[in-house]
């Protein structure tokens, strides 16, 4: 048996509490996007010229309980490649060499306070799952980050069969579905996040 099974509950360490990113995360976490003289580990562009898959942009606004855009939120995404493979040791399939699958964007540089990601549409990671993007919301005023998922409106059949989607009350499922739109610059999926209100986005206890 693994040695860890000998650890009792009293010996277990306790999780370090979360704290807010505050208003000044940009030069630490998204320096390039905000024009600070420092690099960031990731930004809004997940693709290069050789990444395989359908190019899409995912964009949206994070709204507070008054319906006002939040201009100091930070969004991170994590997703599979176009074939549904994750660039991670635990996914034993060989991932696309030109796709890490992680993006990070602050909402403080776009005139409308949008976040945006230029990426590929992910494939379904497993049989029975719908394609989706994991999204994490951080902001001043959020002591703990919030997890949500972005599903795609043109995958209605797969969405309806997805176990995670099925765990969400029917009347709230639409908050997880991004609408598809063709624009002169490419395909855009719109995914607004509502922290509160009638259309409050579904957040998960991951």
């Amino acid at each position, binding site marked *: 048996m693994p040695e860890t099974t000998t650890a009792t509950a009293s010996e277990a360490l306790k999780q370090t509490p979360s*704290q807010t*990113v505050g*208003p000044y995360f940009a*030069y630490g976490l998204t320096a390039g996007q905000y024009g600070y003289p420092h690099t960031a580990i990731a930004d809004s562009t997940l693709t290069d010229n050789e990444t395989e898959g359908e190019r899409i942009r995912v964009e949206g606004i994070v709204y507070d309980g008054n319906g006002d855009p939040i201009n100091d939120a930070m969004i991170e995404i994590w997703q599979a490649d176009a074939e549904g493979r*994750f660039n991670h040791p635990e996914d034993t399939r060989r991932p696309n060499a030109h796709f890490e699958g992680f993006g990070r964007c602050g909402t403080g540089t776009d005139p409308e306070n949008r976040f945006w990601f230029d990426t590929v549409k992910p494939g379904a990671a497993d049989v029975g799952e719908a394609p989706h993007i994991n999204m994490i919301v951080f902001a001043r005023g959020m002591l703990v980050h919030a997890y949500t998922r972005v599903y795609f409106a043109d995958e209605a059949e797969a969405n309806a069969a997805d176990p995670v989607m099925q765990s969400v009350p029917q009347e709230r499922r639409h908050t997880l579905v991004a609408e598809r739109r063709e624009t002169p610059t490419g395909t855009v999926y719109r995914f607004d996040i509502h922290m509160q209100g009638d259309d409050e986005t579904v957040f998960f206890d991951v």
Partner: protein
Amino acid sequence: MNKPYNSRDWMSHPAYLHAPYKSTVLRSPTKPLIPLKQTLSERTGPVYGHEKVGVLDADLTKNGAKNGEPLGERILVTGRVLDEDGRPVRNTLVEVWQANAAGRYIHKVDQHNAPLDPNFFGGGRCVTDDEGRYTFRTIKPGAYPWGNHYNAWRPNHIHFSLLGPSIATRLVTQMYFPGDPLLDLDPIYLGTPEEARERLISKFSIDVTEPDFSLGYIFDIVLRGRNETPMED
């Protein structure tokens, strides 16, 4: 390997709504979180290591220097990143950002009337070693006023961001300093469950202190561990 990560321990983490921290009022979800049975999506996450770290990234006394040394009290901050079973979290990225010694952030929206330091930037990162250990050299950050309530001041703190092995282990937190009288007045710190608060306070260490050079502080960080028994179907 399909074991899920342990749940977030809500006896350790703040609630979304903590009304004394006023910005939470309009930014906290009002509906309960929906439990999610982790799939490969949540058991994986970005893997970044040394390739993302430059030679001066872990030395904030040097990575923003233009024509001299930053002002303030030099400190060494070190600690181990562990999971709940005490196993080291190896080769994981730690990102930090902080105010300068005068309590001023270089961020464009920080309007606090305190001087910027031309030789201090305030952001850095490093990767944990085989024991889960990280080390930063920096300047002790100053306290600064903020608009939450009359005469509100944030205690001295350094922001930490950690990835861990999956998106389930993602953590953003703040490290505080022992004995800071502002802690008991700070609604962000006080938003944390009482029994968990002291985990946010670093410990002064004479062993980490470097003779004739800098004080030393230890801040260990515990990320979510992984269930040893697979989740039942």
